[in-house]
């Protein structure tokens, strides 16, 4: 929670400074953020390449654990497709790109603004912050009505860090390994899915 507030604050500072018109033009060019973005993805890759945990989790819980990220992904994409029918201004690939952020708001908003501009990037930032926020606030309600896996699927990429404490508390410690495995898989899939959907026309 503290981290999302920090991210929102930094975003807001940039926004206010631009509104006030006090920034030099150099900072307004899109190419700086593009190169920083490639650097970011390189480091995300390093994180993926150097991690170990995923295989250990499969061994301890069995192969059914892989169905949890599948449920998250399919459930999210189906619902995002429905959202595009409700929202007249947002296309199917807009909604799928935003949904594919899986609460990883920082990375997804940056990627999406690179592909589709600042407006959809801002939607991705807000939507994915909302998603994390809902898990932090409604986890007990989720467990009661949708079972112990539900805050894990709802938490998307955050289940190995920011939402892990609430999952541990309301789903039970039995589900910590599931949450870690799930968070890792979804985390890694975010840049791939977002680039895929946002790159489609």
């Amino acid at each position: 929670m503290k981290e999302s507030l920090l991210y929102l604050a930094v975003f807001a500072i940039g926004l206010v400074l631009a509104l006030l018109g006090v920034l030099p033009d150099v900072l307004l060019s899109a190419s700086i953020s593009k190169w920083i973005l490639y650097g970011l993805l390189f480091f995300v890759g390093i994180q993926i390449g150097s991690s170990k945990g995923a295989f250990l989790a499969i061994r301890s819980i069995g192969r059914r654990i892989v169905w949890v990220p599948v449920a998250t992904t399919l459930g999210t994409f189906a619902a995002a497709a429905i959202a595009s029918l409700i929202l007249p201004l947002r296309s199917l690939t807009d909604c799928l790109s935003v949904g594919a952020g899986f609460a990883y708001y920082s990375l997804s908003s940056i990627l999406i603004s690179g592909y589709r501009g600042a407006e959809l990037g801002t939607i991705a930032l807000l939507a994915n912050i909302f998603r994390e926020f809902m898990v932090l606030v409604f986890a007990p309600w989720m467990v009661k009505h949708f079972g112990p896996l539900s805050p894990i699927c709802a938490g998307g990429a955050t289940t190995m860090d920011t939402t892990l404490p609430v999952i541990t508390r309301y789903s039970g410690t039995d589900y910590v390994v599931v949450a870690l495995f799930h968070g890792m898989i979804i985390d890694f899939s975010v840049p791939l899915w977002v680039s895929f959907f946002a790159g489609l026309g």
Partner: protein
Amino acid sequence: MIQILLSIISGVAVGYAVRRSAFTKYVSRVIQIIILLLLFFLGVSVGSNKEVVNNFGAIGLDAFVIAALATLGSLIGARMVYKLFFERKKNDV
């Protein structure tokens, strides 16, 4: 798209090569700092885009609708997978 994939893939290769070095401990910190920098730039591009500024309320509403539905969709998926694969074997989870 191709630059994005190349950035990730080269990172994975380097990450695998250095997976035993102490350097990997700092990677998540580096990522966080770069993300902060980029979010600042996202704020700047939003603030200097009149159209986005004037429609901020509508944008927030769209974001909320997508977030609420996406969360609900994943809750339904979670319930199905729990019923299918987890419930009977509760004791050995």
